[in-house]
C-alpha cells in the first residue's frame, strides 16, 4: 500500500512540477492592433503574463520623407513635415522654417513670432486633449475619448478659420506665416481659453482620481532618470522621469523667451507621472497663450524672401519642443535650391525604444497603458 501511495505522490509531484515550469513564448502585437494607434508591430517575449522583452519592429508606414526633401525646394519641405507627427504639425513646420531662417540669417518680424508661439501652444493643447481622450479609451473608458474630442474641436475650428485646414495646416513658410491671422482669431482664442479653463478640471475629475485608472497607472512602467537620458526620452515622458529637457526653456525659440511659464518636472517615473505631466502642461499652455493673445504686435506677417531660396553651404540645426518631445531638424546645404540632406530627429522614435526597459517585468495588460502614456504617433517614428 505504502508503496503505491508513494508512487502516486511521486507521479503527482512530477506532473505538478512540469506544470509550473513555464516556457517563454512570443506574441506579435500589431501591426494591426487598435491600441498601437497606427501600424506599429511589437514582438513581445512573454512568460505567462509577464513581459520579458519588447522588440519594436518599425517601418510599416515609412514614406522616406527625408529622401523626398532632397528633391524639394525649401518651401515644399515644410508641408511634408505635416505628415510626420500630424498632431503637432504646426510645430514641425515651425522647426523647418526656423532652420531655414537660421541658414538665411533672417530675422522674422515680432508678429510672426507671436503668432507662431500661440498656434504652437494651441497645437500642443489639441494634441494633449486627443492623447487624454485616447488614453482613457485604451484603459476602457470611452467617455473620455468623446470629451477630449469635444474640446479639441474648438481648437480645430480656430485653425480652420485662420490656417485653412484642420490638421495638416502647412501654415508656416520660411520667413513667416502664410496668411495673416483671421480677424476673429483673437476673439475665438479668448473664448476658447475661457471655455477650456472651465472644462479642464473635468478631466481631473473624470480620470485622474478614478480608482481603476490609478490602479492601472501608479507604479507601472518605471523608467529611471538615467534610462530616460540614455535613451534620449524627451518631452512629457522624459520630464516625468525627472529629466529636465524642455527645449522651450533650454533653447528658447520664437516668443518663448518673452513669456513666463513653468517647466513641469515630476519624479514619479511611472505611467501616472507621465499622465500628470501632460495634464499640468495643458494649464501651462493656457497660461502662455493668455500672456500673448492680447499683445500680438502690429507688423508684417512675413519677412521678404526670394522666390527661390538657396541656403549658403553649411549645416543648420534647429530643435523645437513638440507635444511629444524634442524634434531636431538638420539641414546640409550645398547652395542648391534643394537641400543636400535633411535629417529629422523625431521624439517618437527615441521614446518608443525605451519601452523595452519600461515594460520588463510588468503584465501584458499594462503595456497598453505604458504605450498610451508615451503618446506614440507612428508616422513620426517611421517618417
Amino acid at each position, binding site marked *: 500500500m505504502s508503496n503505491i501511495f508513494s508512487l502516486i505522490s511521486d507521479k503527482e509531484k512530477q506532473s505538478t512540477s512540469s506544470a509550473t515550469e513555464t516556457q517563454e513564448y512570443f506574441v506579435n502585437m500589431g501591426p494591426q492592433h487598435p491600441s498601437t494607434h497606427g501600424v506599429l508591430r511589437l514582438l513581445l517575449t512573454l512568460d505567462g503574463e509577464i513581459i520579458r522583452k519588447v522588440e519594436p519592429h518599425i517601418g510599416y508606414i515609412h514614406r522616406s520623407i527625408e529622401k523626398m526633401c532632397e528633391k524639394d525646394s525649401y518651401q*515644399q519641405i515644410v508641408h511634408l513635415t505635416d505628415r510626420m507627427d500630424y498632431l503637432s504639425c504646426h510645430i514641425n513646420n515651425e522647426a523647418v522654417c526656423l532652420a531655414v531662417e537660421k541658414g538665411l540669417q533672417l530675422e522674422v518680424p515680432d508678429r510672426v513670432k507671436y503668432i507662431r508661439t500661440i498656434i504652437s501652444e494651441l497645437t500642443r493643447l489639441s494634441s494633449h486633449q486627443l492623447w487624454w481622450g485616447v488614453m482613457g479609451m485604451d484603459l476602457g473608458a470611452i*467617455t473620455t475619448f468623446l470629451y477630449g474630442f469635444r474640446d479639441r474641436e474648438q481648437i480645430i475650428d480656430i485653425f480652420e478659420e485662420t490656417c485653412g485646414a484642420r490638421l495638416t495646416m*502647412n501654415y508656416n513658410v520660411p520667413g513667416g506665416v502664410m496668411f495673416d491671422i483671421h480677424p476673429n482669431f483673437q476673439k475665438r482664442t479668448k473664448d476658447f481659453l475661457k471655455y477650456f479653463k472651465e472644462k479642464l478640471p473635468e478631466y481631473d475629475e473624470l480620470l485622474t482620481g*478614478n*480608482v481603476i485608472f490609478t490602479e492601472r497607472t501608479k507604479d507601472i512602467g518605471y523608467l529611471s532618470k538615467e534610462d530616460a537620458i540614455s535613451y534620449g526620452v524627451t518631452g512629457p515622458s522624459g520630464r516625468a522621469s525627472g529629466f529636465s529637457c524642455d527645449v522651450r526653456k533650454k533653447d528658447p525659440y520664437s516668443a518663448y523667451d518673452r513669456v513666463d511659464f513653468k517647466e513641469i518636472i515630476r519624479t514619479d517615473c511611472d505611467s501616472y507621472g507621465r499622465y500628470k505631466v501632460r495634464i499640468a502642461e495643458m494649464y501651462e499652455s493656457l497660461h502662455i497663450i493668455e500672456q500673448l493673445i492680447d499683445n500680438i504686435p502690429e507688423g508684417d506677417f512675413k519677412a521678404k524672401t526670394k522666390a527661390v531660396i538657396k541656403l549658403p553651404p553649411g549645416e543648420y540645426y534647429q530643435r523645437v519642443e513638440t507635444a511629444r518631445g524634442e524634434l531636431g531638424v538638420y539641414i546640409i546645404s550645398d547652395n542648391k535650391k534643394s537641400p543636400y540632406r535633411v535629417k529629422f530627429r523625431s521624439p517618437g522614435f527615441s521614446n518608443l525604444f525605451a519601452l523595452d526597459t519600461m515594460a520588463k517585468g510588468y503584465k501584458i495588460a499594462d503595456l497598453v497603458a505604458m504605450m498610451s502614456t508615451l503618446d506614440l504617433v507612428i508616422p513620426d517614428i517611421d517618417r
Partner: protein
Amino acid sequence: MFKSIYKYLSDIFNGVKTLLTGMKITGYYFFHPKEIITQQYPENRETLKMFDMFRGEVVLIHDENNEHRCTGCSACEIACPNGTIEIISDKAIDPETGKSKKVIDKFVYHLQMCTMCNLCILACPTDAIKMAQTFEHAVYDRSTLTKVLNKPGSKIMAGVKE
C-alpha cells in the same frame, strides 16, 4: 486584523466615491443635452458651411463671360510639390498685336495627389486659381478625380499679362 478590515472597507468606499465623481459629470451632460455639440451630418448638409479659408480643392476662377486669368505660365506647376498640376499650353495669335503667344489648352488637376498645401495659390502671379470650400471628394472611380479646370470654350480675360 481590525486594521486590515478597515483598510479593505475604506478602499472600497473610496473607490466607489471616485467612480461616482466621474459618473456625476456624465450624469450632468445626460440631463443637459443642450451642451452637447454633436452635428448631425449628413442631415445638416444644407446649413453646413465651411470657413472661407478652408482648403478643399483647387479651382480656376471663371467670370460670367467664361473668362479666366490663367496665362499658362506654369508657376503653379513648378511650385507644386507632388506633380498635381499639369499645364498643357498651346500657341495662339494675339488679335491685338498679331504675334503668337502662349495660352492654356488644358489645366489638368489631379485631385487624388493634392495635399492642399496652398503653394500653387501663393505662386500664381495673376491670382487665377483659388481654393474652393468643397469637402466631399469621395468617388467610385479614381479616374474621375483627374479634372480639367478650364471650362470648355473659356478664354483668357483681356488685359491679363504674364
